[in-house]
């Protein structure tokens, strides 16, 4: 009997240990988690603070909040060149503070490639692929790109910022920031130390074809109506180099009413896709009522 008791005791001990072991591990894990959450919260706070600081700095650098809020729309035209491949295109853009956006790129011999946002509908239309409704992450990205004054949206379009180093571009000393967007993507910004203007951006963009890494250098900043705009952008995507030269920029210019209406082909697509959209009940793209009047 004694031996049986002994075995029972050992069995009970093992059983206890068996129960205790994960319990100890769990406690340790929870403690670690709490620590990590606290650390994360602290870094989140720091990230948000840095983002707010960066927004303030950027607004000041491009001309100040008053200048940015003075106008309600912008019209731009640019020349796009891929010199190596012998290609050129004309790019025109319209964007307003109500969130309307229309961009059109005419490539000689290839036609008009368009993209836009009208109300809740984000779309693209081109002579090769026809009309398409832009949805999901791509739509979020398009909305971000189509902000009338993106500097005013920095803290709303991003979760946080972190310092990612320093680099001198040409003779311009820059601080590098990693900006985390609301959908989790991290974009790198090179901000000049002396004037606070953005000189380079590195990001991976969402496209129907997948994710495309792209680098953009901004230069030749000039003020238009008191707001600084880069008049030259050099882009690199894989082996391709592209240059965008800004030709004209007007604030609150008269626009064709057509700019604010959906192209007929897109309208048809919207009509056809309504039942499908209702089924999938697409989520709103972070545009709350209070935000929607100030894109």
């Amino acid at each position, binding site marked *: 009997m004694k031996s049986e008791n002994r075995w029972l005791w050992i069995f009970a001990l093992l059983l206890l240990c068996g129960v205790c072991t994960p319990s100890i591990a769990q406690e340790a894990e929870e403690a670690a988690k709490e620590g990590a959450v606290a650390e994360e919260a602290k870094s989140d706070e720091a990230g948000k603070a840095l983002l707010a600081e960066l927004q303030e700095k950027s607004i000041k650098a491009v001309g100040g909040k008053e200048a940015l809020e003075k106008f309600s729309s912008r019209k731009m035209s640019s020349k796009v060149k891929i010199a190596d491949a012998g290609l050129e295109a004309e790019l025109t853009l319209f964007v307003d503070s109500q969130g309307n956006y229309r961009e059109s790129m005419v490539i000689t011999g290839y036609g008009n490639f368009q993209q836009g946002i009208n109300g809740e509908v984000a779309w693209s239309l081109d002579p090769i692929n026809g009309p398409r409704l832009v949805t999901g992450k791509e739509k979020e990205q398009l909305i971000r*790109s189509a902000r009338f004054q993106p500097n005013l949206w920095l803290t709303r379009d991003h979760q946080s910022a972190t310092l990612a180093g320093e680099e001198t571009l040409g003779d311009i000393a820059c601080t590098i920031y990693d900006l985390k967007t609301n959908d989790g993507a991290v974009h790198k*910004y090179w901000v000049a130390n002396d004037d606070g203007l953005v000189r380079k951006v590195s990001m991976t963009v969402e496209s129907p074809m997948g994710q495309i890494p792209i680098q953009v250098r901004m230069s030749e900043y000039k003020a238009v109506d008191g707001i600084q705009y880069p008049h030259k952008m050099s882009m690199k995507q*894989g082996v391709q180099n592209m240059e965008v030269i800004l030709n004209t920029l007007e604030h609150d210019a008269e626009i064709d009413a057509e700019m604010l209406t959906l192209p007929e082909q897109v309208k048809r697509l919207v009509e056809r896709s309504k039942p499908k959209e209702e089924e999938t009940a697409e989520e709103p793209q972070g545009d709350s009522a209070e935000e929607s009047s100030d894109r």
Partner: protein
Amino acid sequence: MFRLSQLHQILLLLVSVSFLAGCIGLPGRSQTLSSEQKVLFIESFDEMTRMIEESFWDPDYLQECWGELKDECRDQVEEARSAGEARAAMRRLLASLKMSHFGLIPDSASQELTGSPSDGEAGMILRVSDGRAIVVRLEEGGAAESAGIQSGDEILKVGERDLAPRLQEWSESGSRYLPIQALKSACSGEPGTERDYLVRGSTEDRIVTLTFQPPSDEHPRVGFGNISPVPLMMEKRILEGDILYLRLNMFLGPMHVMPWFEKAIQEHKDAKGLIFDLRGNPGGLGLMACGLAGWLIEDQGFELGTMKTKANEMNFVVNPRLDGWVKPVALLIDEGSASTSEIMAQGLRDIGRVRLFGRTTAGAALPSVLVKLPNGDILQYAMADYVSVSGKRMEGVGVEPDEVIEVDPEQIREFGDPALTRAAYWILGKAGGPKSEIR
């Protein structure tokens, strides 16, 4: 803070072409190089190697191919006495990769290659069968048809040159595409000039003199970046049995091609099926394969394949169009169908949307770019690998048809165009017709 136009990406993507520009067989210029020209050639060599090294998707393979050869070829460029010698060294390095879409188009020859003055046509298309050059198609109203040449005839001599030894030489190269290009050159020349052909018909041999005709004004000329405009041919016919037949000679000129395709399928939506002829089509803008495929599929989320660059992967996504074509589709392919043609054929076959008739394609399906070098030459280089949705890599292999129709003079005489007839029989559900081997 910063806005990135989404449309910029489109332009960057458009630049990538899947087009076999045809960079072979052009003699280099033999003038002696001046010291300034030599500098330009050396700069061009360095630029060429830099761009390829920067973009090649398999650095280990590149190193394996180039290794010490790169320095050796550079030395050859430095020592070259003529432009021809310098280009030969550059081409030697490109050829060591043993891949399509790596080529050099000489400055002076790029015009000749792609535009006038050699764009006069004899109006016949030749393919190789058992070491013989066979006429497989005659253009309606073309010089060859007017002179009495018939489909199924054999061409023995071009001018004074016997074709047989050359066909042998080309077949030994292992490239399915080389004879296509060479035979195309044999059937083209300066408009208004004449060339003799020794033709073997069903009963006798005869010499036929053909006068090269300029491309019809009906064909718009379309270019792409550094490439001079070339005639774009779009053919539409309604075949017996109410079948829509469309033929496209290259994937360029979207402003012409896309509305043409759309109009054809909208006007004939009651036809029993569509035969899309991509035989001899060397490719062009990869994006156009997606655009055309968009008319042939109904559902979202379909891709033709994936382009794998050194930095990322890009999918050839198809955007389905409203009121697209829902009837059966037959694609005609042959050894002259390259690049974008192969991407489209394999991609649509992967989802069972098309049935392929003809012969295995060129096996030259790499997305590439065309750039101007400091010496004025145009470099074409592949900047990505390509695999279809089913994981098939077509480079060097090609796309196999579902029904193989060999070049057979007797069948050609009987049916005119056996692959076309076979495809029509399939659409109509008819038995019999031309012989085919089903894969």
